[in-house]
């Protein structure tokens, strides 16, 4: 019933959109509607995406068929939409969901109401003026046997709802499940294209990681250790020639060795944080939050066993996001929550700062996106000017 009611919501949206679309289509015949067409198609897409989200919540696994990038400009957008089979499939779904989906959704909401009304009819029918008493179906009821019959009808409404409800919900979802998924053939080729892109960005992320580690080792640790070697040479020379000055050189060499160790630790932490291995994701996030300059609350539900790569990625995402929060957002509170639903790990990081964050701004968010894409995950950033900023990441985590 909850599903049917949810379906009613999107089907009402579908109905309004269809109505709007019809108006625009008619207006297009006259020319003026053409200007509104891309906007309407975006609206269709928005409604379809909403339904995809709803279906995914009910475990139907409907992947969005759209590419991430959209052309800009009126003509280009229209051309791209017209040539994308997903647009036409969305429109077919829109029509069926606005009609069949709407009816089923209404049934799902009205049936329980009339079931309760009719079943309880004997309790309150006598309160009604005699000429207004009647069953839900509208026929008048005057006598006790008829009243009991109405009550039986109510019970049968409930039985119908319980018996047919799940089937109705499935029927309501069916057009969406069939039409909102990428076309089977498009699905595969698109999937390949998508995998190619994510693999490329995985390699790129990998190379960037290696470069970062190499640079850190070279500029930090290696130079410090070379410094140790050189200072030891100086000290040895001093022992022979001027023993008093050897102490100073040795002191310097020692502190350089300590610095080298410190930097080595930082590099290691950047590769695979030891805290993650010692305390698991929840513990690592808690200590991350404790170190964060902005007060931060961490919620982690039972995650079960996770692949190390997913755990590490989730950790780095949270770390990077909280660094951004502390640096740019001027937030007073932040929250990190990690949940697992089936084979999907979701990481949410939110702050109450000034907003205005963007993935394209070349910030740490680009790094987050690369890491997420490498795992074939999705990333959504909501950060209106004035805040709040919400980063939502979903990572497949089949283990």
């Amino acid at each position, binding site marked *: 019933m909850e599903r049917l009611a949810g379906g009613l919501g999107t089907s009402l949206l579908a109905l309004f959109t269809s109505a709007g679309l019809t108006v625009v289509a008619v207006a297009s015949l006259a020319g003026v509607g053409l200007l509104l067409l891309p906007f309407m198609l975006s609206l269709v897409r928005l409604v379809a995406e909403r339904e995809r989200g709803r279906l995914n919540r009910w475990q139907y696994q409907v992947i969005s068929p759209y590419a991430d990038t959209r052309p800009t400009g009126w003509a280009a957008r229209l051309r791209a939409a017209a040539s994308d089979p997903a647009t036409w499939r969305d429109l077919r779904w829109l029509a069926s969901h606005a009609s069949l989906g709407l009816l089923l959704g209404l049934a799902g909401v009205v049936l329980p109401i009339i079931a309760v009304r009719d079943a309880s009819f004997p309790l309150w029918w006598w309160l009604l003026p005699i000429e207004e008493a009647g069953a839900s179906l509208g026929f008048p009821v005057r006598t006790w046997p008829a009243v009991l019959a109405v009550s039986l009808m109510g019970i049968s409404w409930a039985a119908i709802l319980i018996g047919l409800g799940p089937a109705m919900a499935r029927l309501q979802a069916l057009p969406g499940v069939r039409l909102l998924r990428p076309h089977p053939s498009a699905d595969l080729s698109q999937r390949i294209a998508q995998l190619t892109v994510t693999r490329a960005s995985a390699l790129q992320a990998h190379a960037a990681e290696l470069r970062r580690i190499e*640079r850190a080792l*070279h*500029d930090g640790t*290696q*130079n*410090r250790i*070379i*410094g140790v*070697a*050189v*200072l*030891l*040479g*100086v000290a*040895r*020379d*001093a022992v022979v*020639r*001027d023993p008093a*000055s050897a102490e100073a*050189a040795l002191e*310097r060499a020692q502190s*350089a060795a300590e610095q080298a160790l410190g930097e080595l630790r930082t590099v290691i932490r950047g590769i695979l944080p030891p805290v993650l291995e010692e305390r698991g994701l929840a513990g690592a996030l808690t200590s991350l939050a404790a170190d964060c300059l902005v007060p931060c609350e961490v919620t982690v539900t039972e995650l079960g066993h996770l692949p190390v790569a997913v755990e590490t990625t989730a950790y780095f995402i949270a770390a990077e996001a909280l660094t951004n929060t502390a640096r740019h957002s001027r937030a007073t509170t932040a929250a990190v929550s990690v949940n697992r639903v089936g084979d999907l790990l979701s990481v949410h990081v939110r702050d109450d700062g000034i907003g205005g964050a963007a993935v394209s701004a070349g910030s740490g968010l680009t790094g987050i996106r690369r890491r997420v894409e490498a795992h074939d995950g999705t990333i959504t950033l909501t950060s209106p000017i004035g805040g709040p900023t919400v980063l939502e990441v979903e990572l497949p985590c089949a283990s």
Partner: protein
Amino acid sequence: MRIVIAEDDALLREGLTLLLTARGFDLVAAVPTPEEFLAAVAEHRPDIAVVDVRMPPTFTDEGIRAAVQARRLHPPLAVLVLSAYVEQSFAADLLADGVGGIGYLLKERVGRLQEFLDALHRVVAGGTAIDPEVVAQLFTHQRAIDVMRPLSPREREVLALMAEGLGNTAIAERLFVTDKAVHKHIRNIFLKFDLHPTDQTDRRVAAVLRYLDSRTPSRS
């Protein structure tokens, strides 16, 4: 001996400064960037420049390029390049003019003070000082093997030590042979590499260059 140092790492710059001044060298400037290095060379006209390979802004080969430029602008400036890792093409870049006075050492050799100071003196005197590690890696390269083919194993050993910058006596000591034997080997190497005595280039450098170059096929 007047020295200019170009090294971006503060600790190492300080270490070098300590070491060289303690030994009574005339350290005229120690700077962290290629630009300051070129300015210091122009101003002080040192006998030798000690240059780090990786320097700002990109931390790739700025030091090498600055060193090559400084040598072109102010001959016969001797240059000793310090590097954190082995990259033979850098050594070949430096030796490309066929004139001596070039050194290429791994940074940690600086800690072996006597060897480092020997290298400094050798380079200032117009010789070469190529790190044994660089030389060792060269022998593993296919083109180097091809170039070395005419040489006997003993001659290859002699060439490797020559590349490090050792003189005849030092080579003889290293290989436990007489000076005369080393002299003979070197003559054979020059012969097999077809190197004749000329005024322009040092034949020892030319022989070393021949095999440094063999590693980098595209270089002319």
